[in-house]
């Protein structure tokens, strides 16, 4: 073996050892330490902010769910409905439609979603807000806009035998402003709202 081949081999061997040492530091020690700190300081959040319903884990407050009638793709009128989803709210297939903002398919989808939301909730098409007719980026968006929650009040109240005022107050309680007053957007968490609704309807 000549000198340059030998020095190249030695350099590659050094490089490999450097990679392995740094893998131990950043790929083993770092995530384990962070996991340790996270699990002791914020166990609920580190494990996915799970929520309970009737004594069992029923999802995560951060992950949107489907509120269709079980086994169908029809929205269940008894519940507040989330935004359209590209994956029927399956966390194993996150991601958006990726359709361009002027795409003909998207134009058609938006028009149909507006008609559907308007007739489903008994409101004029112009009252349907933008988040109700567009898919989110994650396809598991846990939130809707306050406006979308408000147009669902009458339908939800009727279907659950509750008064409109009761349900409207419930929505008001769940409307969250921007974080710290100016970060992000106004929103309503659909799972939390529906869990409160379930408790109200039970009483």
């Amino acid at each position, binding site marked *: 073996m000549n000198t340059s081949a030998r020095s190249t081999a030695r350099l590659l061997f050094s490089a490999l050892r450097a990679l392995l040492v740094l893998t131990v530091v950043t790929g083993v020690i770092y995530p384990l*330490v962070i996991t340790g700190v996270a699990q002791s300081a914020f166990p609920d959040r580190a*494990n996915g902010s799970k929520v309970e319903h009737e004594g069992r884990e029923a999802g995560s407050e951060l992950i949107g769910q489907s509120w269709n009638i079980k086994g169908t793709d029809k929205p269940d009128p008894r519940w507040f409905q989330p935004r359209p989803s590209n994956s029927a709210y399956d966390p194993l297939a996150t991601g958006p439609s990726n359709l*361009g903002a002027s795409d003909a398919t998207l134009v058609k989808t938006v028009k149909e979603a507006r008609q559907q939301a308007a007739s489903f909730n008994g409101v004029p098409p112009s009252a349907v807000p933008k988040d109700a007719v567009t898919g989110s980026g994650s396809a598991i968006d846990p939130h809707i806009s306050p406006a979308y929650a408000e147009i669902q009040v009458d339908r939800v109240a009727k279907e659950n035998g509750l008064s409109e005022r009761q349900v409207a107050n419930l929505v008001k309680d769940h409307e969250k402003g921007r974080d710290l007053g100016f970060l992000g957007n106004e929103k309503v968490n659909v799972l939390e709202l529906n869990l409160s609704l379930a408790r109200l309807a039970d009483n």
Partner: protein
Amino acid sequence: MSPILADVLQVSALVAALALVHRPLGDYMAGVYAGKRHSRVERWIYRAVGADPDAQMRWPAYLRAVLAFSLAGVLFLYLLQRLQDRLPLSLGFAAISPDQAFNTAASFVANTNWQSYSGESAMGQLAQTGGLAVQNFVSAAVGMAVAVALIRGFARARTGELGNFWADLVRGTLRILLPMAAVAAVLLVACGAIQNFSGTQSVTTVTGQTQHLTGGAVASQEAIKDLGTNGGGYYNANSAHPFENPNGISNLLEIFLLLVIPFAMPRTFGRMVGSVRQGYAVVAAMAGIWLAGVVAVTWLEAAHPGTAAQLAGGAMEGKEQRFGEGASSLFAVSTTMTSTGSVNSFHDSFGGLSGGVLLSGMMIGEIAPGGVGSGLYGMLVMAVVAVFIAGLMVGRTPEYLGKKIGPREMKLAACYILVTPALVLTGTALAMATGNGESSMTNTGPHGFSEVLYAYTSASHNNGSAFAGFSANTGFHNTALGLCMLLGRFLPVVFVLALAGSLAGQRPVPASAGTLRTDKPLFTGVLVACIAIVAGLTFFPSLALGPLAEGLAA
């Protein structure tokens, strides 16, 4: 509060936070790379590596070390994916196919983090945490090391010595990236990001349906993914996924992480060359371009979002309710201008003209403020070009920081600038001519072309974001984009280190009345103009075919 006021406050808070840490962080990083002492852990690491951290390297030796370390990274990551099914913590996922494993290995080592795979349905926990997240650290540290070597080229005289790669690599990882990522990761968990080693759990929802909730070391990977301007999400939805980016606070924190090191590096540069004002001139150019991009995309998404978005009443397709249009636009500009490529909303569904701005952010070379390290060295190469052009205009020998910009320096700078346009335009043209572009499009017409152009721009500039409708997981694109990522990362590094060696060997020329002052606003202006002219002349025709055609038709 009106949405516009909230957007303005959000950007102001971010700028204030970045301005606040610019000095201390930039000075700290200068101290890290200039320091003579080694900690005990570092000395132990150097012994394990078999390297002498005090041995000075000339540019060919520095380059060889960079390439050897990166080659080891590609091979290791490739094997980790190919053997995934036989290794623990695989979550039962199969081995990754050869072309996709090559693409992913190239992608993470080149600090690109283009993802032709989908995190939650292909990549196990060992590959993610022990492989991909490791490259998030070390590929970032390599970029910073190369930038520091170039700074030393300007700062040193009559020596060819650029420092020691192993020392720069280890210090960048241990003293800069690791502590910052650790703090950020804990803050992200406090916001709601997950951090566990549980597998996927099934729950029964209120309506009696089954939902699979995923687990993983997400926050620790998220922190370094943003801090190291990497961008590869734990999940397919990237930072739009609530487990990666749960609320408005985590969102601003992540944007801050994208920008904090790139915007502090000019201070490190100023400190190390002995004049912080030189750093201010550079950071002003970066900040000006970035802010113009933020204003442009925020305004375009509100005022000119496209037909479907107008019908819907706003550009919310592909965006999360908790972020809205403003926080999504801010993230999108920051991620494309930093070579990060993580996304909290999906760029494919942005309006045509906004998409054009995002593409331009990459096409100017990822320098405003650019990736960690790579942003600074890219900007300094543009500064060399700007000095040369200004020197020609006033008829003086161009010089920058006391170093003559002669034929050799200009040839290296020109080669640097030509690499990525050659890759982007050749790659896009090849993909279109062979039909591989068209068969991977989700959209039609100009927007379909934009998807292909975006893919090759993103890969060659080591960004990693996508017009994600583009189906990248084909043999052709995995291979071609993998090559674009490797060449787009390491050819420029060759030219930067050669330039550094050439500068370090020079004897400095004293400043005279005829010297162009490079620490003044006038120079910042010349620099920005040069960047716009170079990128504009190169890429305008391709932009006209894609985003401009779409945006003006809508």
